[in-house]
């Protein structure tokens, strides 16, 4: 599957795709996008990297097991949903404030964004983890 062309092209594609994925995830609340789609885009980028550069390079790029991403994502999402309980609000209550950073326009920063980021990490972890693991199995068989 690996080819010189793909590898070279991926040098440009990969960071751009990841950036796009992050953009998608953060922008999601008010524009097309969201954590799920961002996660899928990032997962595709990572899988493409795995295809073009091989398992070793993948191991160097992502030295942690993908289950850490799943755990982190789930923790983030659950924490975001539970925090309103502390203030006596129902589970998953969200606020959508516009935060003024002093420069430019106020930024739409919904609390749901953190939840969405949790989704992002879970999706990346699950997709990449499954594909990489099954890919190893194929390599070894």
């Amino acid at each position, binding site marked *: 599957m690996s080819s010189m062309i793909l590898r070279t092209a991926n040098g440009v594609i990969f960071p751009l795709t990841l950036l796009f994925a992050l953009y998608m995830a953060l922008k999601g609340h008010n524009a097309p996008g969201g*954590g799920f*789609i961002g996660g899928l885009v990032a*997962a595709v980028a990572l899988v493409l990297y795995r295809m073009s550069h091989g398992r070793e390079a993948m191991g160097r790029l992502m030295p942690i097991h993908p289950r850490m991403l799943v*755990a982190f994502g789930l923790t983030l999402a659950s924490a975001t949903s539970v925090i309103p309980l502390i203030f006596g609000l129902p589970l998953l209550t969200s606020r959508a404030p516009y935060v003024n950073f002093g420069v430019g326009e106020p930024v739409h920063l919904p609390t749901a964004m953190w939840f969405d980021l949790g989704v992002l990490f879970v999706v990346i972890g699950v997709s990449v983890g499954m594909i990489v693991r*099954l890919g190893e199995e194929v390599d070894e068989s």
Partner: protein
Amino acid sequence: MSPVWMVMIAVLAPVTLGLVTLWLPRTWIERRMAIAVAGPLLSFILLIATAINVGGPLGTGGFGQDDGPGEHAKPQAAAVEHLTTGVLNWMPSLNINFAFLTDGLGLFFALLVSGIGVMIFLYARGYFGKAGPTSADDLYRFYPTIGFFTTAMLGVVLADYTLLTLLFWEMTSISSFLLIGWDRYDKKAVKLAMQAFFTTGLGGMGLFGGVLVFGNATGYWRWSEMLANTSELQEMMLSAGDHPQLLWAFVLMFIGAGTKSAQFPFHYWLPGAMAAPTPVSAFLHSATMVKAGVFLVGRLFPVFAALPLFPQLIIPFGAVTMLYGGIVALQQHDLKRIFAYTTVSQLGLLMTMYGLGAIKYAHGDHTLAAIDFDVTQIANHAFYKAPLFIAAGAIGHVLSRDITQLNGAFKKHPAICGTMMLAALGLAAVPGTISFQAKELFLYSIYHAASVNPWLWLVMAMTIVTAICNVAICVRVWTTLMGWKGGMTEADGHHHGHDHHHEHAHEHGLLANLIWLPGLAIVSLQFLGGFFPGLFWGNLFGAFEQPATAGNYFGETGVPNLWYVITHAFSSIPFWCSMLALGLGVFVGLSKLWRGTVKDFADNIYPAMYWLAVTGGGRCFRLVQTGNLTHYLLFVLFALLTGFGWSVYEDPAMWSALSLNSGEAARFFEYWPGMLLGLIVCLTAILIPMTEIRIVRVVFLGACGFAVVALYLVYQAPDLALTQLMFEIISVILFVIVLRLLPKEKSTKDTGKLWRVPIAVAVGLMFGWMTLIAVEGNRGEFSNPGAEPLGVTLAQHSYGLEADEFGNPVLDTAMSKDPDVGTRGGGGKNIVNVILVDFRGFDTLGEITVLGLAAMGVWSMLPHRRRKNDPKRKVETDYPACAIDPLEHQDAKGVTA
């Protein structure tokens, strides 16, 4: 300090200080003990203070003995009000709050638990010792665990909210499980601990049900409310036919009380629990755990005694338990087992006592309940049973716990044996112990109740037989330990008990003597009470007696003194019954009869139930979980179809979503790109099951998915299209990988699949229909007339949160013009995302959890079997990525490294 906090601290002190000891170094044994003992001691002092407080049983406002039975409801309600502490809100909507009922019964039990707790905490130091190989370790674990148990027990007896009682009740089950299964590596002990846990846990379920039924039927969720409305509730009880809930509440609660208090045939867990170290046995089986059931019945007694079922249910169970426990106890050799079965017997007696109390006998011009001084009965048992266990554990340390091995042990260990022999006098109810008066009172109860119902003479006979057994055991203990003629010897057979046995080197000094001193301290109360019933016992415990039970026969004198019983009793039947029991008991004890051991048939009940549950459960499991994916899928689809069919049947207006007006029909072909793509989707979907070759199916599935992507694009949903596209890519990659791992396809033609076609068609049509309903929700005459189409609702509500709250500008949108909309919604403009993270955020949370679980499944089913795949080692290799997988290369490296 307000009373509620005082009691709260008293309840929590043992576990808190027990946990504090965890931070001490393991070798600090004395300091550990001092801190741990401070827990129950603090509880004891605080509870005494509560009792003396105005309104408490020892205070001025409480109801003590002087309240006659003719007391009216009104002052009683006020008195109950006095006895409850304030309320600390916890979960008011669920009727669980912290409030405590410090009436006589509850406070008496609490004082008993904390007082004996102090003794047991001290005894544990003597029992586990200092020099043993595991002593420090045992004590390290012991104090927090028994502190937890003490707290749970104090909570049970003091809690005012019924559900709070239940909560503590379950905590006693859990903590006793930990204590009984003390030897973690002894499989037998763990099994016995589970037996106790499941049996009492079953009872906990019963109590839970009973509390809920009672609360729902009457609206009372506090014991104090129940007691304050005694007369009203008794009216309801008397007409129980109209209130079957009360009947069920009682039956369920009795299941809880009966299992906890080891009533036949659920008594098996109690002798089994002897696997615990002796401090645990002495605590759990004398004063606390097993008395919880008796306590519960005592708590229910003032109200539920009016229920005709109350004596009918309790007396038979109690009497049979009493007799059975006594007879089995006589034929045991292990001291702890002997005392365990006498405990079972005594618990039966206490239950019977409350059962008899429900029977009213004629007394002059009014009727009286056939019960007198119930607290005395309960205290009496604790004050001889705890020393018996303590001494049994101590003698097991130095010699043996097998009574046949102990002939003449008194000469070697006079202190331990003396304690045991004194306590055994209490067991036999010899005159001079408070036990004698207590047994007299019980016989009077039967005597009076039998004047109403002659069948109860049978209970009298059973009591005499039980008393004979108890006396015989006492005689055997005395003759054996003293080495007199007639004692038990090895000739009577040797029994190998499988119980906790703790070894440690012999010690000297005060701390070592803690192995018997607490027992002596407790048993001295027996004799003080026996000889000075009025001066000592009456002043100490009289105030705790329940007004409904105190002073029914001996109202003027309090607990009768020895002289009174003997001089006034020559003409009375109960006195001669007890003399008969004493005489026959001495005869049986000295004779050669019944000296072997018997096996309790009830020991088989739990294993049988366990077997039934495990095998039966396995059968059911295999019935439901076939392991065949097709079955699961069919089941889910069938449920879905049934549910949808039901809702269509319920709401015929759903049919209207299918109607099509002419205007829409005319515009049908305006959407030709969509129509075309839809046709492609259908076509590829139909083609999938047509072929047998997996890879072709994947291709069709992919084609179907990409057609959907195009469909989204045509209808201007770029983000959906992108999501679907990414999803298709990932799923196709996954499929391709998995297909390579799957075994070779079978070429056999499966012909049994045709019947799946109608199911597939039905499900497909159903989903189409559901989509139409969602989109066209406002058409037709729906049951909810104001309903808007789902899409419109979501669009309106997705944006327009109170963005103003943080002092930021509110964005002017068409949607938020509606003032009503402004307070709802997720605050985002992307409807899809707002649906995902806000409207059904909980669903999303569940979905990502499922995703994580699925991945976890892949990782656990396909573990890294080969070490060389460990990424940590792979990182070191630095050859360029290449198409050929460098496994062999790496192998070589691994070998050289």
